[in-house]
């Protein structure tokens, strides 16, 4: 009698283990990208993803963040609150919307949604904290070691003051190590479409995977950048 349940049990255990260990990213749902864009500049996203709070208390948390300098339009605020209260609430979240976001392959432009909160929808930048990507990425890719640097900065983030085109930027770039290898490659190749240097070979998921071998701190990525010859 008991035997048939054993494999099922094991499967459930495996699934539970997977879910428990994989909780560092936010559940899929409308508003997720907005939450990522707004929260990640200051928080390790795991910090947000593991909370389970009532709508009322999420509302309080957002109030606090606004006090600390988060800028939101009323629409963004409502969307973020809906997402947090629904997917990181005290009730179990509803089943993910029909698996379309998960199963349909993403495009680089879709992955870029994670970046646009800081770098702007068109990569135009947002001084004095966040440098432009459009126009600048091409120069990074042309510089010796620039290709690796660009990948490392997405994987591990960047902290410290940098000079771009003679202007100083002093924001904080979070780590995007939680993105799958494929999506990191997609977004890097998307950035390259804004200006591709001669002989550019697209980034591959394997290249991203290899770069994960040695974990760097955002300060170490900054040192990497300082070694490049950039305008």
């Amino acid at each position, binding site marked *: 009698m008991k035997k048939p349940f054993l494999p099922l049990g094991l499967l459930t255990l495996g699934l539970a283990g997977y879910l428990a260990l994989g909780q560092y990213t936010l559940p899929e749902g409308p508003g997720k990208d907005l939450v990522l864009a707004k929260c990640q500049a200051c928080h390790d996203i795991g910090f947000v993803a593991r909370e389970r709070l009532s709508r009322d208390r999420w509302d309080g948390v957002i109030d606090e963040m606004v006090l600390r300098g988060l800028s939101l339009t009323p629409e963004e605020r409502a969307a973020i609150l809906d997402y947090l209260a629904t997917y990181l609430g005290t009730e179990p979240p509803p089943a993910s919307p029909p698996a379309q976001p998960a199963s349909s392959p993403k495009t680089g432009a879709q992955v870029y949604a994670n970046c646009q909160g800081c770098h702007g929808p068109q990569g135009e930048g947002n001084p004095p904290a966040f440098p432009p990507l459009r126009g600048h990425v091409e120069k990074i890719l042309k510089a010796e070691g620039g290709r690796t640097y660009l990948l490392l900065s997405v994987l591990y983030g960047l*902290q410290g003051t940098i000079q771009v085109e003679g202007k100083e930027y002093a924001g904080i770039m979070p780590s995007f190590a939680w993105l799958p290898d494929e999506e990191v490659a997609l977004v890097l190749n998307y950035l390259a479409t804004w200006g591709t240097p001669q002989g550019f070979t697209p980034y591959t998921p394997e290249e991203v995977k290899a770069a994960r071998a040695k974990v760097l701190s955002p300060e170490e990525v900054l040192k990497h950048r300082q070694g490049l010859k950039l305008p």
Partner: protein
Amino acid sequence: MEKVDRRTTLKLMGMGAALLAAGGRVMAQQTPTADQLVKGKNANLIVLSQRPVVMETPYDLLASNPERTSKEILYIRNNVDLPGYNTVEGASPQGWKVEVGGLVDKPFTFEASELFALPQTEVTMVLQCSGNGRTLYNPRPSGNPWQRGGVGNVTFRGVRLQDILAAKGVKVSEKALFITAHASRQGNAPEFVRSVPIHALENALLALSMNGEPLPAVHGGPVRLVFPGYFGVNNVKWVEKIEFAEGENTTAEQVPRYRVPAIPNTHLPFLPQEPGKRYPYTLQNSRANWLVTLNSFIFAPLEGQTVEGPYVRVEGVAFNDGIVPIVSVEVSTNGGRTWHQAQLSTQGKTFGWVRWRTTLYLRPGEHEVMARAWDAAGRSQPLDGNIAWNERGYEYNGVMRVKFSVA
């Protein structure tokens, strides 16, 4: 699924294992260990946040070092990440300037390296995040899920703030009711400001070293303003400005963060907030997490351990804000119906933790031991820590319970 043959069973088991492995892989990729994030930290520390760096000491590590908490295992709760400071090495005091101003007759600036020439004072104190024990509240408060390892016992050495004021011939105005400290904002770090009552000036220390070594950069080196008896958050790391002020600072770290509800002019032993509800924190209806609340921890036996009987050694530490001595620690093995006094290692006032121990006669089987401290001001710990529930889960000091077996 009436019958599952051997092959199917194996297949399903394989799938489960693969999923588990995948989970592990995801985690390995995403969460660097403590030593990867902060150079010189013990790899076993629990990483609660990578940025800003927050890491907790595993309870068994804390308990196995009951004398002093070393820099390798001391917890970290940083609100600010200064570029290049994620290491337990010291930071250079050369060129590090600290401004002293506000309600003083002669504002001045000094360099951290000047401090080495002044008389040095040492203090052993409990450093504890005011969110320590947060996970024990129900319903779950927001914030880093601290268990009990957001605490340590460390020795700071440096120059008393009063001594440098005296050395510079500076007088603080009688109007000054608070000391406000600002952390460095280098590398575009966010603002971090805290105010403590002027009474804290009595023991305030500009710390240059910890446990006999240069103050680790990640713990606030080269210079940290330390207030013995106060919760960790008030001990401003990388201090660059100290102001004497009439009122509390009003930036986010002072209100609404790091506060608990309070009814003005009352000293209720509980906090007037309904568990699970919000509270409109203002400077008037709440107080900052200042003085450490009386607390005790059981270091042995550990939860789930099996120990030899029938004589069982129970031990741990107790601490308070250092204003009065801890006078007793009691243990109970019957859910608090009767209590038995433990012996204390010291009697006087201290900012450090006091070790206590006792031997109990216990029959073989399952037991639960509770520990409760009392101090000379008559303060003790609630049997139900949830009575102090607040939405951010600060200042938990409920009586600790440990379940273990006697062989």
